């Protein structure tokens, strides 16, 4: 990846290279790990406290397993960097943000103006997710 | 013969490569012969026509006749609505498809 990842975090980028899940599970001191699309995010949970970066692979924009991986990690309390890498398109970023991704390494460049419009577009959401947005039903009923 | 066809991007209309541009009428379609792949790649790049593809057709006195029924229906229009086809006044148009 030539370009720096697109980040929605204030901390310094983590510069340790991400290791594979197998390598991570066999090597207890790694702090960055890469999950392939079919790999189980829950396998990371026992050591989640030591991880600063999880990179989730999107081999094709059609492959949505990474959205669940992100939710699983955030629901378990993971607060480190969560990066979507691969075939990540501008129209998917808002959904990925909702699932807890806060860093993106797209294969093809993303038009910053289209991205900003996309992120700003919806004022209301029906569901609570990993982004802390208050769902419509809560706005209705307090 | 080989024809190049697709659907026009803004309207969705069925279009046929004429040798210099695109026409809605299969009668205008040109035999692309060995050049088909090259024209297809070029037109794909131009992004004016959606998913262009090459088909086989038979040359007839009335013009090219696509080999597959699906492309004949594309060329004419829905057989169950003759009024909405490209040949609404021709009662025999439907039999060209079958």
């Amino acid at each position, binding site marked *: 990846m030539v370009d720096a990842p697109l980040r929605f975090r204030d901390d310094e980028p983590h510069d340790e290279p991400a290791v594979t899940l197998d390598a991570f599970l066999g090597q207890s001191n790694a702090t960055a790990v890469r999950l392939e699309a079919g790999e189980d995010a829950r396998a990371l949970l026992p050591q989640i406290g030591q991880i600063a970066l999880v990179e989730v692979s999107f081999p094709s924009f059609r492959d949505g397993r990474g959205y669940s991986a992100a939710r699983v990690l955030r629901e378990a309390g993971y607060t480190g960097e969560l990066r979507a890498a691969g075939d990540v398109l501008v129209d998917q970023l808002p959904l990925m943000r909702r699932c807890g991704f806060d860093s993106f390494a797209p294969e093809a460049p993303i038009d910053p103006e289209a991205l900003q419009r996309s992120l700003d577009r919806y004022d209301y959401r*029906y569901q609570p997710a990993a982004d802390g947005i208050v769902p419509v039903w809560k706005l209705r009923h307090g | 013969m080989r024809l190049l066809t697709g659907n026009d991007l803004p309207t969705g209309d069925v279009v046929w490569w004429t040798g210099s541009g695109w026409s809605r009428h299969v009668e205008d379609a040109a035999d692309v012969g060995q050049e088909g792949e090259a024209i297809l790649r070029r037109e794909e790049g131009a992004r004016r026509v959606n998913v262009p593809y090459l088909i086989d057709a038979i040359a007839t006195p009335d013009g090219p006749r696509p080999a597959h029924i699906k492309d004949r229906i594309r060329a004419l229009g829905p057989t*169950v609505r003759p009024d909405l086809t490209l040949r609404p006044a021709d009662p025999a148009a439907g039999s060209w498809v079958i």
Partner: protein
Amino acid sequence: MYRYDQYDQAIVDARVDEFRDQVERRLSGQLSEDQFKPLRLMNGLYLQLHAYMLRVAIPYGTLDSRQMRMLAGIARDYDRGYGHFTTRQNLQFNWIKLADTPDILARLATVQMHAIQTSGNCIRNISADQYAGAAADEVADPRPWAELIRQWSTFHPEFSYLPRKFKFAVIAAEEDRAAMRLHDIGIRLVTRDGELGASIYVGGGMGRTPMISHLVRDFVGSDDLMSYLEACLRVYNRYGRRDNIYKARIKILLHEIGADEYRRQVEEEFLLVKQLGIDPPRAELERITAMFAPPAFDPAAPDAVDRSDPDFAVWLDQNVAAHKQPGYAIVNVSLKPIGGIPGDADADQIALLADLGAAYSFDELRVTHAQNIVLPHVAKRDLYAVWRRLTKAGLAEPNLDLITDIIACPGLDYCSLANARSIPLAQKIATRFADRQRELGELKLKISGCINACGHHHAGHIGILGVDKKGTENYQLSLGGSGAQDVSLAKITGPGFSEDGVVDAIERVTDRYLATREPGERFLDTYRRVGFEPFKDAIYG
């Protein structure tokens, strides 16, 4: 019925803006077709044989007169004067221009309509019993639950790129009028200890591998519904197959791991998800339910109907169903005139239906999965007037559930996936059997033009599948399916037929039925009693 508040409206308006942006990027060449396709599909826009096709969502098949009139207007202004009602209770326009779609969506949004998630690998428009709120046999109106699911599933951040499309149906009666068991998730509302809850069936579907769903949970209370469904979908999203689109539906996952293992995983996930606070409070269901309160029926409405006009009496017996309110009836409007195109209605007919809904049905209309229209709340004293107006418009064919009330997909006349035409065959069958349809009784005939089974052929008492046999259309006949509470999958009879050949084969089947049936037996009953072989002999013997 449901009315948007400021939040619903803002979301739909934002969606119009988003799609306008996406269409502009496509037209300017910024997006390739490969990138644009999933975006347009998620908003119901297909590219079919002759043009773009826009599928408009009709949530749980319910709409009001203003919405129906809007559909007529769009047919006139942007299409070629007609629309096609689908087996998912939606409406499709066949001749749409890409550049017009943002304006069409903007107009739909003014009457609280949209095309959100009417295609794509996401949770599709929720379907429901078309007699909801009118049927005597329901435990509750299923639509408030369907609306809760609609909101939960709209732009769901985790479930917008599922392995494959995902269809829900919600019913609340013993009689299944929505093919509930043939959906990815089917829900039947039930009561337990006085509390309303949902029985959850998972893993049904048609397509190339038809399957009947499994009961995964017999009772989920309203307080847990969203968490439970979230768990169901998460297990599917994580473990459903991505390597082969023909094996990617949830039915295949259940088939491969077994319903018990799927249930175990869902229950495990549910325990985690339930902690997240994603279930709306009961007040939200109550808010929605209040909008589905019964209309102001006239308690003094007379129950008697003058049957002296014999044509009216035939229609009354065939197309009008019992209502839970004395003095009222449910009117089925057939979109299957003999020789017509199943499910099609022109703009004038759509506008007339809007008028009839406003004048005679408390402003409500329904679309059925059998591609007909329902006026759910008609006073019996108005039935004759309604029938007269339907008759004038060619909408009073008295053929509900008869052999000419055919479900047919658009087939090769319109659809880019089809292998054979469905509509001309439906027209031939209807014409051949028009004189005998009442003698044959209930006989559900369903035609699909390809293996994707949009015409529900697996669920037909008689089902027909169009295939491509070396460049010519060929039709496989199957028998014994049902999408109702007696759900079953049809069995293929044997080698296929030409278009005329399959009509002849059906005649041999119906002749055998008439010769074999016992008093009171429907075709399906006789088939189940005597079995497949006598019919196979009749066809090929």
